[in-house]
Each structure stands twice: as structure tokens, then as C-alpha cells.
């Protein structure tokens, strides 16, 4: 082995041939699902993860879909980032997802990384958890005992931690379609393909007359700035019933920034990240409103 070569430690590998097969394999000791592997394999190289068994779920094509079903958009866990980015139906109803996918990693990583892997990795700087939190999506989790659905806002319980238990798989994400609403995701990163310094996603449902629209409901997701469950709950609360205007959006941004807990790292100091949280929240709200009103 060459010096400096990063290699995962010894591991067993099985390829799941059906969902049931995957669940059976995952119930074994120290088994981990392997989707795109674009988070898990780097973690294994660094010994931050050392599972005994990898259960490759890439053959489970039934988990790869994007479809509108009643008043929900359903996205299979094995859907690749590139497929979500290219999805016309996702873009039409949820531009926040297209905005987010356009800036997640780079085109080659997006070819292989999956939506389910992104959510389950639960990296505190991941873009999609914030986008899906803003959308108040629910996730579907399957285990030997059956199926359960969990609001995405309860799915992430801490950095790199979700409610998915041993022997379980995330199978899909469901996003409710709301009338007279739209959304946007904005991110600041240091260079193409990099993780965010900070990012904010906003979803707005508007009411009132077109000339003076009012916020009926707001969803705000934040990532990389230490927002609990990727959500700016106080800012959402503040906006409800207020005019959908510049003043409200700026105030909501300030509230979001006050309630997050960014940590200084190589991507920037705390005050800069807090500043970005405020500014990106306000801008995402502005863009979501413009889209909802058909102005953008």
C-alpha cells in the first residue's frame, strides 16, 4: 500500500436484492446502508465510521423515483442529486429544491450522491435537510416492524444523528404541495462545489390581496449555522400574518440570526456566519415571495 493512501478498514459487503433483503441485512450487528457512499466512504477512510457490514442498496431501483401523488411530491431515497436537479415537476412546485441542488457539491458528485444519503448523513452543513425542513416535508422509514412517517423537523436529532434505527431504511421523502406558495434556497460558499459557509431556504404561503399580500405561513430552513433541527422557528412565527414586504423579511432575518448558534471554523468566523444567516434568510424570503406572486 502506498504511503498516504487512505483506505477504509476491513469491512464485509452485501448487495441488497430487495427492500426486505436490505432490512434483514441491516438488522445484523453494526451494519450500515451504502447508497452513493459519497459521505460514508470518506468517513470510513478517516476511520470516523467503521461498520462491519456494508449493505449496498444501489440495486433497489424501486427507491428511485420522483412523482406527484395527490397533493404531495414523493421523492425516493435512492434518487440521485442530479435527478432531483433535472426534475421538471420538482422545479415547478418546489424551486427551493432546484436552487439547493444546483449548489450541492459538483455535477459529478451529484451523479452518484442520493437524497436519502444526504438526509441520513445529517451533516450540520448539509443543504437538503434545511430545504426539506423549510418545506415541512415528512420522511418515510421502513423496518422489519413496518412503516412509520416522521416530520423532517423531528428526523435530525443532532449532528450526524437521525431517528433511523438499526434495521431501518429511509425510503422516501414527501413534500406537501401548497396553493399560492413558492420557495427559494440561497447559499454562500467559498468556491464552486464547496459546502456552505451558510445557507437559507424559505417557503412562503401568501394570502390577502395581490397588491398587499400577507404571509399565511412561512417555513425557514438554515444550514451550517447551528439552527436547531435546521429550522428558524422564531422567525417563522414572527412572519405569520405580517405583510409580505421588505420590512418583515429583514426583521425575520434578524430574528433568525439571533436564534442560531454558528461556530467559527475554516469557513468563517461566528459573526460573519450570523450576518449571512440574516441576509440569506431575508433574500430567500424576498425571492420566495416574488415567485409566489409570479414576479420571478
Amino acid at each position, binding site marked *: 500500500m502506498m504511503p498516504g*493512501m*487512505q*483506505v*477504509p*478498514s*476491513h*469491512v*464485509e*459487503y452485501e*448487495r441488497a436484492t430487495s427492500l426486505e433483503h436490505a432490512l434483514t441485512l441491516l438488522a445484523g450487528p453494526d451494519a450500515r446502508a*451504502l447508497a452513493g*457512499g*459519497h459521505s460514508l*466512504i*470518506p468517513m*470510513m*477512510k478517516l476511520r470516523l465510521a467503521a461498520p462491519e457490514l*456494508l449493505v*449496498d442498496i*444501489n440495486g433497489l431501483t424501486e427507491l428511485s423515483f420522483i412523482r406527484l401523488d395527490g397533493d404531495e411530491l414523493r421523492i425516493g431515497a435512492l434518487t440521485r442529486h442530479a435527478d432531483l436537479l433535472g426534475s421538471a415537476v420538482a422545479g415547478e412546485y418546489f424551486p427551493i429544491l432546484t436552487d439547493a441542488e444546483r449548489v450541492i*457539491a*459538483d*455535477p*459529478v*458528485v451529484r*451523479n*452518484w450522491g442520493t437524497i436519502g444519503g444526504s438526509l441520513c448523513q445529517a451533516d450540520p452543513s448539509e443543504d437538503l435537510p434545511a430545504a426539506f425542513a423549510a418545506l415541512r416535508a415528512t420522511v418515510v422509514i421502513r423496518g422489519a416492524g413496518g412503516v412509520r412517517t416522521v416530520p423532517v423537523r423531528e428526523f435530525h436529532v443532532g449532528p450526524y444523528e437521525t431517528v433511523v434505527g438499526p434495521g431501518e431504511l429511509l425510503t422516501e421523502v414527501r413534500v406537501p404541495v401548497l396553493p399560492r406558495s413558492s420557495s427559494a434556497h440561497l447559499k454562500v460558499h467559498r468556491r*464552486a*462545489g464547496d459546502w456552505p459557509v451558510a445557507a437559507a431556504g424559505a417557503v412562503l404561503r401568501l394570502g390577502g390581496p395581490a397588491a398587499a399580500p400577507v404571509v399565511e405561513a412561512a417555513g425557514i430552513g438554515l444550514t451550517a449555522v447551528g439552527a436547531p433541527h435546521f429550522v428558524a422557528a422564531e422567525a417563522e412565527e414572527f412572519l405569520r400574518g405580517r405583510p409580505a414586504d421588505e420590512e418583515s423579511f429583514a426583521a425575520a432575518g434578524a430574528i433568525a440570526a439571533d436564534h442560531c448558534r454558528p461556530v467559527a471554523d475554516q469557513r468563517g468566523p461566528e459573526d460573519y456566519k450570523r450576518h449571512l444567516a440574516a441576509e440569506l434568510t431575508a433574500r430567500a424570503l424576498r425571492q420566495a415571495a416574488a415567485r409566489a406572486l409570479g414576479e420571478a
Partner: protein
Amino acid sequence: MQVTVTVNDTEYTREVEPRLLLIHFLRDELGLTGSHWGCDTSNCGACVVWLDGTPVKSCTVLAVMADGRAVRTVEGLERGGQLDPVQQGFMECHGLQCGFCTPGMMMTARWLLDRNPDPTEAEIREAISGQICRCTGYENIVRSVRWAAGHSAPEATEATEVTA
């Protein structure tokens, strides 16, 4: 465990450890050293190959994940002694300096051109945005891909494309 991978239309069967990365399988097991092993963190893109017709960073894929699948590497661009237009473009337009990023750049470029035969400069830059040229020779790389866009691919390229 035993894996069988079709690389550039040739089937190879080997006994490998599950932890072996695809890039090392290609280079060390099969002797296909055209694909380069660079940053090892899926950032630089020197290791880009096609897996079932789609470019992936092979330092972040296990060889066992490619079992039963088709891989295409830079060695598979040339057909019957004829260079792919992308390879010709890199020659014509000085698309390589040290050459380290070149195999990955070419694989992504071929894929882009198969889907979008007449890409704009911005589209080319977006396509290679996950790949780093440490000589900073991006201007000439983009020019090389544009050159290739103006010169159609040999027939064989289409025929070998594998759909997932």
C-alpha cells in the same frame, strides 16, 4: 469477494477485498493507469471514470459496487486507433500542461458532449466544476472541449454507451 467488471468492453474477474476503491482496482489490479489517483477526497476529479454510462469519482466508489457493471476509462476513449475528438481537442488546443487532471477532464467532457453536443463556455465550466487543474489551465481545457464539439465523435462512441 469475486467481482466481474466490464471495463472498456472487456470483462475482468478478480478477487478483491470489499474495501478496495475502484480507482485502485483499475490502476493496481487491471493495470489501467490512465485514470489518476489524486486528492483521495472526491474533490479533484482526476479519478473520474464512467460507471454504467455516468461519470463518477472513482476514489469514492468501492470496486465491489462496480460488480456486474460497466466502467469506461480514458483508455476506452480511443477507438480502433482513432482518437476521440475530445483527445484531439486537447492536443490541438494545448488542453494539458502537466496532464494530471486530463483523464478526468476528458471523461467528463465526452459525457457532456454526448448529452449536449454544442455546449456554451459556461456549460463546459459548470460540467468540469468538480475537477481541479492545478496548472490552472482552464482556458485551454474549455477551448479543447469547444474544439471537440465542432468535430463529431467516431461512430463507436455511441455504440459503447451503456444505459443504467
